[in-house]
């Protein structure tokens, strides 16, 4: 385990979760960080997307493979790993549903793996109503109207979801996130 905390280049002790060695400044082998940790964010449902983007750009400006074209193979490999993991995590955190999923997954509720049928009737009825409206919207004006209605429901759902996360009501948050995933898909389909 000692080797993990030593810089592979200069052998001095490094912070276990740092990207670079404090001593010689060389890029370090990626250690496992969850999506929030990568960007130094608290594991919360509502995050400041501007902070996320700034941090993303800052990290990529230091760790992107373009910065390592003349470096050793080790450094190239590490940069590749860091960079793709940063991209992937950025994408997941930017989206409300997948960000909620990361938190839910770490508490035992995994939406992606949940291929099983979902039967919250009240919720599915609401979703079906909205979907019917989407189907019936033929011109731009009615599409815009239903699009706005969906956006309003999405905002309400996000607020409600945030409260459930604060209360650590994982099961309820999981169910509401299912609703949010339906709504987001609908929004994308109509716009």
């Amino acid at each position: 385990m000692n080797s993990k905390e030593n810089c592979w280049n200069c052998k001095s002790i490094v912070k276990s979760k740092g990207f670079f060695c404090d001593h010689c400044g060389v890029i370090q082998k990626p250690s496992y960080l969850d999506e929030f940790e990568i960007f130094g964010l608290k594991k919360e449902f509502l995050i400041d997307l501007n902070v996320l983007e700034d941090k993303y750009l800052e990290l990529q400006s230091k760790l992107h493979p373009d910065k390592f074209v003349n470096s050793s193979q080790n450094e190239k490999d590490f940069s590749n790993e860091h960079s793709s993991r940063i991209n992937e995590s950025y994408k997941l955190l930017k989206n409300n549903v997948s960000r909620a999923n990361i938190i839910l997954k770490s508490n035992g509720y995994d939406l992606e793996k949940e291929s099983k049928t979902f039967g919250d009737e009240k919720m599915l009825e609401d979703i079906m109503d909205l979907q019917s409206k989407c189907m019936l919207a033929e011109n731009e004006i009615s599409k815009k109207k239903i699009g706005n209605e969906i956006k309003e429901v999405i905002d309400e759902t996000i607020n409600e979801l945030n409260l459930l996360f604060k209360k650590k009501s994982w099961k309820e948050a999981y169910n509401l996130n299912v609703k949010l995933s339906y709504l987001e898909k609908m929004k994308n389909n109509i716009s």
Partner: protein
Amino acid sequence: MAYSKKLIDHYENPKNVGSLNKESKDVGTGLVGAPACGDVMKLQIKVNEQSGVIEDAKFKTFGCGSAIASSSLITEWVKGKKIEEANSIKNTEIANHLALPPVKIHCSILAEDAIKAAIDDYKNKNKK
């Protein structure tokens, strides 16, 4: 990915689209969803109270072609069957008939769950 002719037929010309009166005592409604892919399926059956035979079936599905074809097919299959027979239809029969690709198997599971939910609803309404 190539879809089978049967699947495309059901998708392009779905049978039994529509709805029955949810409040009616001889109608059972099943409403199910698959969170991972965003499909919602509503399946309804009208049962003859004397014979226990399903006289009519309707569906409304929002989802991919496979989900629509699976619900169309199962409504065709259950018509004229007794509820017990309809309850024993397996998703694998639907998947095989439509030659669903592996990533679309869950659509047939959804259809099986929907018919089971509809039958449960009918039974609950007609207890005693």
